[in-house]
């Protein structure tokens, strides 16, 4: 039985956290150790999202944790929110993705763009896990270029009619409601993009899980098809307008992912250290060989840097001062370094590293998705490039 996770904290980051932030981190850490880790390897191999964890996550208050208490949420600060994502992803990127989507991509847009009636109606039920949501922005032909999306929302006498298809939608097949981003005007009118709350049992709406994934296997990833889906007038999120609305949601999720990646890296590093000390070859622990020590030193260095990056980003966000470009830098760096840590851990583990019994290869495979989603690594590179030079190199 694996020992309980003790954390990776080389520069006493704990000393920079407030007591409640440590308490939040500790409770999620304990929950992940006790409820997620024992089952997640098997879920991953089976290609199953552990739905039974959802009520437990809701009871802990993990959904929309940084949204206000009046909607049944915990009202936490952004560092605490980040620490939740860190610990969830230390468990599995698929579990963290569920929480990111539910909190950052479903509850957040309702909170930021919804009417009071929509907020009061949906948010408490989403916080309690009674209603699961999904975020429908990406389309089969429009990933990195969401501005080009072609899902339409045509206004009618008593509502809207939506038509289109979405792809790579986390929680799609289990959600009771989908936040669908669609153009109310012609395809070239990016400003006409608006968000719609679409109950998934509406006639014309269908969701199907995508098969054959080699990454994020413990997560539901779905295609959505909307064929003449009629929704009432009040389905639109009144505050949503243009691409900046969904992008604002993505920035929330990306912030959580920057922390989450650190969690995955910490899990791999911890596994590497324990293994290196226990595994004996040529008569002594492999942790005593120079090449393995170099691996471990590099891992610890990158993790420490990424942790401090996250902390400052969180503090800036608490002040309302964090920019999307700052979030891009953190997401880009942290996911990239986490992928390296996972890969190097896999290598240090030798043949054992290919087994689902160990965490490294599962994290490695998952992180490839995290590298690509929420803005690919390359897209964030160009976001930073534009920020630095003022020149767009996008296309």
């Amino acid at each position: 039985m694996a020992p309980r996770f003790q954390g990776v904290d080389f520069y006493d980051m704990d000393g920079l956290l407030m007591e409640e932030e440590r308490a939040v981190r500790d409770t999620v850490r304990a929950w992940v150790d006790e409820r997620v880790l024992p089952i997640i390897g098997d879920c991953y191999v089976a290609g199953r999202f552990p739905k039974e964890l959802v009520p437990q996550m809701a009871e802990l208050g993990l959904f929309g944790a940084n949204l206000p208490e009046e909607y049944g949420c915990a009202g936490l600060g952004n560092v605490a929110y980040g620490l939740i994502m860190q610990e969830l992803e230390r468990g599995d990127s698929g579990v963290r993705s569920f929480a990111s989507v539910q909190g950052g991509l479903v509850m957040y847009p309702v909170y930021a763009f919804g009417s009071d009636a929509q907020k009061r109606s949906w948010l408490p039920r989403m916080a309690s896990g009674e209603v699961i949501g999904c975020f429908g922005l990406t389309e089969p032909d429009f990933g990195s270029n969401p501005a080009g999306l072609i899902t339409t929302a045509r206004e009618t006498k008593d509502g809207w009619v939506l038509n289109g298809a979405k792809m790579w939608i986390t929680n799609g097949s289990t959600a009771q409601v989908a936040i669908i981003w669609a153009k109310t005007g012609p395809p070239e009118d990016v400003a006409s993009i608006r968000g719609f709350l679409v109950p998934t049992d509406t006639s014309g709406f269908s969701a199907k899980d995508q098969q054959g994934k080699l990454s994020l296997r413990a997560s539901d990833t779905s295609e959505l098809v909307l064929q003449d889906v009629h929704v009432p007038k009040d389905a639109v999120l009144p505050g949503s307008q243009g691409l900046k609305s969904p992008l604002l949601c993505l920035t929330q999720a990306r912030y959580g992912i920057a922390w989450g990646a650190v969690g995955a890296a910490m899990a791999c590093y911890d596994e590497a250290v324990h293994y290196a000390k226990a595994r004996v070859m040529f008569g002594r622990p492999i942790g005593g060989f120079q090449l393995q020590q170099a691996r471990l030193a590099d891992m610890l260095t990158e993790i420490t840097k990424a942790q401090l990056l996250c902390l400052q980003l969180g503090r800036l966000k608490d002040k309302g001062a964090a920019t999307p470009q700052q979030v891009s830098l953190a997401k880009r760096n942290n996911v990239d370094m986490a992928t390296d840590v996972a890969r190097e851990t896999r290598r240090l583990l030798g043949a054992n590293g290919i087994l689902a019994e160990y965490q490294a290869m599962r994290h490695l495979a998952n992180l490839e998705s995290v590298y690509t989603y929420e803005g690919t690594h390359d897209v964030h590179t160009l976001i930073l490039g534009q920020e630095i030079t003022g020149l767009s190199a996008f296309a």
Partner: protein
Amino acid sequence: MSRVLAVCEQRDGVLRKVSHEVVTAARRLADALGGEVDALVLGAAAVRGTDVLGRYGADRVVTLTSAAFRRSAPEECAGTIAGRVQSGGYDTVLLAASATGKDLAPRVAAKLGVALAQDVTDATAESGVVTAVRPIYAGKVLLKVRLTARPAILAIRPSVFTPVERPRAGAAETAAVDVAAGRVVVREVKAAAAGTLDVGEASIVVSGGRGLKEPANFKLLEELAAAFGGVAAVGASRAVVDAGWRPHADQVGQTGKTVSPTLYIAVGISGAVQHLAGMRTSKVIVAINKDKDAPIFKLADYGIVGDLFEVVPKLAAEIKKVYG
């Protein structure tokens, strides 16, 4: 002259063997302090087995009887013991740190208004002051203390103070005592499955972990334990107790029982620190595991690397030949 009281334990009218250890330890202290040992036995009537206590060093064996002592009755016993300590002028009191004793000793100490050294693994006296050693932090650290209060009260860990014969008179006295009724009443005792020996008491323990793969496979360990002819108990690691395969009462380790049997056989147990904390003071440790790098081998006196499903049945067969 020092007066040392050795509080013995009985169950169902028979003296428990741990009492020999308590008297042995008491004798050792009395010799260092220059004094006498009185053994104290509380029972509903005369208790069988008290006649050997003189052999282990008791100058006197005092049996106090009351109907209240028929069942485990810590409240009633504590009152009687404390009263006896005071009326007898004892300066040092020893009890067993058995499950019963660990509950009884604090009550006695508190009634007398003094400290208690709980779960002691070594005790000596230097210049008239009793010093004790007790494991703390799950056995990772040994704490040596001087007991400056009078009386000095110690509860000694079972299976550590090997009984030694230092014969004294062992003069027997019996008296009936009046005991005020306690407020806690034992309604019933649900006995463990017939024939199961308590893991904390057995001289041989065969323990299983996740390597057994399924709860039904513990039958292999039960057969191995049975091969020792009734003196072996089956223990379990935390992993299989948490998984619901075995009861908590069988758990050996930091959050289970600490055991010190003569022989501990760890089957399919990797040897996590928390488990080792519960059995590292066993006299002889044998490990059977298919992983030659399992940490348990670092601690085991003898190990077999192999498939437990082949090794354990063979071992049971060989042991049966020895025990007949």
